[in-house]
């Protein structure tokens, strides 16, 4: 028995039901989209146009988040054998991070971080 098997079976079942439901729903239900139905509904008022540049800002944050994630994954594999790798690993990671930080500096300079 694989150590992770029960966990998986649990997750699997937990997910199976909503999936099955939504599948069934999508199979049975009939949909006829018409203009009114498919308008985004904001308590009866027509959707106000979204101005300004902050959506783009959101996007940066998301993107930076992606990249931080990847870095984190890399860093984890480095952290577990910090001792073993020693100075060499430190240097390698430093190089990796330098490039990365330069990128962040660039974003900063471009105003990716300011919220006003």
């Amino acid at each position, binding site marked *: 028995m694989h150590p992770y098997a029960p966990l998986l079976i649990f997750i699997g079942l937990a997910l199976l039901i909503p999936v099955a439901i939504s599948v069934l729903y999508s199979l049975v239900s009939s949909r006829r989209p018409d203009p009114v139905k498919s308008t985004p509904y904001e308590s009866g008022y027509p959707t106000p146009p979204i101005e300004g540049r902050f959506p783009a800002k959101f996007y940066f944050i998301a993107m930076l988040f992606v990249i931080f994630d990847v870095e984190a994954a890399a860093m984890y594999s480095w952290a577990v054998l910090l001792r073993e790798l020693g100075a*060499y690993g430190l*240097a390698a990671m430093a190089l990796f991070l330098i490039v990365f930080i*330069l990128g962040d500096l*660039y974003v900063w*300079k471009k105003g990716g971080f300011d919220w006003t």
Partner: protein
Amino acid sequence: MPVDGSLRLILPEIIVAGTGLLALTAGLVSRRSRLPGFVSMLGLAAAAYFLLAEVAGETTQIWSGTVLVDGFSTLFKAVFLGIAALIALVSFDYIERNGLPAGEFHLLVLLATVGMMFMAGSLNLITIYIGLECLALASYALTGMLRGSAKSTEASLKYILIGAISSGVILFGMSLVFGVAGSVHLAEINAALAGGTPMLPVLLAGMVFLVAGLGVKMAAVPFHMWAPDVYHGAPAPVAAFLITASEAAAFAAALRIFLVGLPAIQEHWTTVFVALAVITMTFGNVTAIVQTNMRRMLAYSAVAQAGYVMVGLAVASERAVSAMIYYLIAYAFATIGAFAVVILLGRYHPAEDIADYRGLGRRAPLLALTLTVFMLSFIGIPPTAGFFGKFYLFQSAVAAGMPWLALIMVLNSMVSIPYYWGVVQTMYLREGETDAPLPAPAGVRWTAAIGLAATLILGLFPDQVVQLVSAVQVVPALLSGGL
């Protein structure tokens, strides 16, 4: 593994990357949009110096084959550096005129160059793949850089979608090859397959995916369809960069993968490449005939030229490989030179129709003359470099017992004459609505001059270059001996 002297061997790559960051900062701190260009050219010169002074002549694997330094890689790296420098030179004026962010532009070009250098300089599928992606991502960004132009955005969207699909395809192929051979190192793959494998079908499937994925990068029909749109929509210098460097890098990677990694199934991939070569050159030429836009004409001609080069890949003999490299070099110079003229014209006629070249013989006699030489080189008329390159490929094809392939090349060159020659006729025989002379900025002039000189010299005295390229071997000696 500690950091040893092997860092010295990738010093050129490091310098190029560092230069990129320098160029970026230069672009950020200084208002003058020319500074980053100079920075990147200096950096490229330094990298080239180290490449030729320190690295050239070495043949060794470092970091367990994730990096390989040998004649092949050094030659290709030199080519890439040269192309990047020419692109930097030709794009001064273009960047200023279109208000492109100079620092970012040069950074992306340089990092793409780094990626290409690793593509040519590795025997490890992972390194090759990452290098490929560096090149690809930078190209997508560069293609979309003209934010004001719908064409540019469209081109980069198409490029990134097709490119992402193609990298998925390549990866699927790599994973299958890895599954069959149990390694990502080409030499070990070769060793594992040497005795024949029970999993031949899977291996063949993997090979097919690799061919297709790399075919996308080489713009081989039917995987080429992104190419005309991208070459048309991208900023002109970027298009020149993609046509020359990116294609060359794809061929370098393909040579390594197939000749070092998969010689065991050579008869199979030879079949595919022969078919691709024939289809590609024919399709490209036939389609180019009816083009009325200069950029698209050059794009389809690029497809056709890729077909010619692929003949070398299909023949895959020592001589064929050197012929390919020679052809790529010759073609790169002619293309960038031609694009210099295109950039100049685009400054006054944004439509870039061939009709806009009417009366160019009057308006800019010298540039018209150079463009004529480049067209002759594309056709392959002596004494230009294009002739010798084609001839060299003919020879290799005939020597390898594929005279009919050579015949198809000849026929295609014949078919290609009208549309190349049409440009020349337009320039000289048709009267433009204006005779106003076209002042050419220095960068454009110099690029055209360099391209012209190289085209003629390579065509008239190819001996040295031939010796250079015929010394190159795809399978490094240290591998062909052992394993």
